[in-house]
């Protein structure tokens, strides 16, 4: 097997000395892999993502990307934030094109190509006709789709996504799950896929999308187990209806049920 794309080795993170958010987390993320992370609220998922993004220093341990330590943010790692982090002074279009206009992601694109990609992405997330609206004029679900489109438009090599579909209705969510798999490259050979780290609360979503699901336990955040999802690709509606799918969901649910209760009761 090839060397991992991203390697977390005994990574710990505490805030202010007392709050241990993540403890001794070791995890290899393969090139072209779709990794989902599930776990109860407050178990440190966002913290892990922020460290992968290079936005939070580690307290101890090492984290490498292509063998080199992660020392800060980089445009090859696109992030979709749990709170969306949309620029309130920019319209839907202005937000979606942001990375292409001001970051390295747009280098080598002609203005026409850029416009075309922005339009296509906005259409993909179902926001056609809302181009000129400001974030404060959008519903929560629409804002989430703008954030998704902003990440997608930059086409980063690695996508770090924090509950990207949580605010959406069931139908839109299914559509965007399929779309996400297409962008990730499920129709392409494994060597041509992007790498995705996808945080979610929805177990069925994790199972449907991912190659592997990492289950975290809370207080402190530790890796409880990694489950291989060997459902055949490409996946679609047939996958969602299959017995294997239901069985996998069930077994993961049993893994984290006890965790979830513990986290809720505390």
């Amino acid at each position, binding site marked *: 097997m090839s060397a991992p794309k991203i390697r977390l080795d005994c990574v710990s993170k505490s805030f202010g000395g007392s709050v241990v958010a993540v403890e001794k987390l070791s995890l290899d993320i393969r090139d072209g892999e779709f990794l989902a992370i599930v776990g109860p609220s407050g178990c440190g998922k966002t913290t892990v993502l922020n460290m992968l993004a290079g936005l939070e220093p580690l307290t101890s341990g090492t984290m490498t990307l292509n063998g080199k330590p992660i020392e800060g*943010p*980089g*445009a090859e790692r696109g992030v979709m*934030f749990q709170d969306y982090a949309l*620029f*309130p*002074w920019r319209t839907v279009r202005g937000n979606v094109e*942001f990375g292409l206009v001001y970051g*390295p992601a747009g280098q080598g694109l002609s203005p026409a190509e850029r416009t075309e990609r922005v339009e296509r992405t906005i259409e993909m997330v179902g926001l056609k006709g809302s181009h000129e609206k400001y*974030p404060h004029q959008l519903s929560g679900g629409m804002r989430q789709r703008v954030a998704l489109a902003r990440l997608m438009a930059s086409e980063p090599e690695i996508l770090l996504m924090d509950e990207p579909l949580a605010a959406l209705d069931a139908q839109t969510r299914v559509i965007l799950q399929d779309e996400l798999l297409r962008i990730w490259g499920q129709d392409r050979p494994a060597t041509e896929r992007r790498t995705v780290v996808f945080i979610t609360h929805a177990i069925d979503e994790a199972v449907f999308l991912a190659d592997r699901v990492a289950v975290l336990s809370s207080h402190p955040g530790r890796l409880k187990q990694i489950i291989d999802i060997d459902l055949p690709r490409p996946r679609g509606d047939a996958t969602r209806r299959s017995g294997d799918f239901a069985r996998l969901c069930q077994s993961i649910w049993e893994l984290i049920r006890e965790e979830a209760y513990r986290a809720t009761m505390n």
Partner: protein
Amino acid sequence: MKHMALRLAVPLLLLAGWQLLASGSAQAPRPTTVAEAAIAMLRDGDLLAGLATSLGRVFAGFAIAACVAIPLGIAMGSMPTVERNLDPLVETFRPIAALAILPLVILWLGSGSGAAIAIVAYAAFFPILINTISGVKRIEPSLMRAALTMGLTPLTRMRVVLLPAALPSILVGMRIGLGIAWTAIIAAELAVGAKSGSSGGIGQMMFVFYAYSIDLNGMVVCMIAVGIVAFALDRALRWALAITVPWSRI
């Protein structure tokens, strides 16, 4: 229609009350005598010339204040070291009213436009600075993080994230600053009005009415004109704000 009538009712009542109260004394200015004076002053152009002089000074001083306060505020808001070093200085000068530095300014710059502009710049400087600093400091951290993950260079980040994020607050500071600047210019012109060689402005006009011609009607006309200009300035700036920052509710 009904709204208009209601809005007019209060000023009209006040005017009527004023007329009634003042009719007892021969010298007291009354709405009718003030109106006559206003028409005369408008006709010979003195009033508008005075206002224009004062406004010119306000805009000049205000522009200077903004050009210094905004970059300084951004530096202080985004760089803790800069803030630590400059904050004591700012907080020492801030409580000193613009008029309190007038004697010094007159000694240095004389009693002409230079002094007036300096006073205005000083008065407008602090609200713009303080609001710029707080605007920069209150930026949602996740917005900066988003820009970081998209690989923006520090200079681009400042231009396309920090500045627009702080803009509503900067504009509020400018609005407050302009109001204070207008107040300060009148006071400054009043105060230098007695000096020989001082030149024009609505404040000086008031001083002349007070000290030489003892024309109460003229003084009241000036006061009303000052109020109307202040109101117009504020409305204009509010309108400019709504146009410049349509995303912000201020």
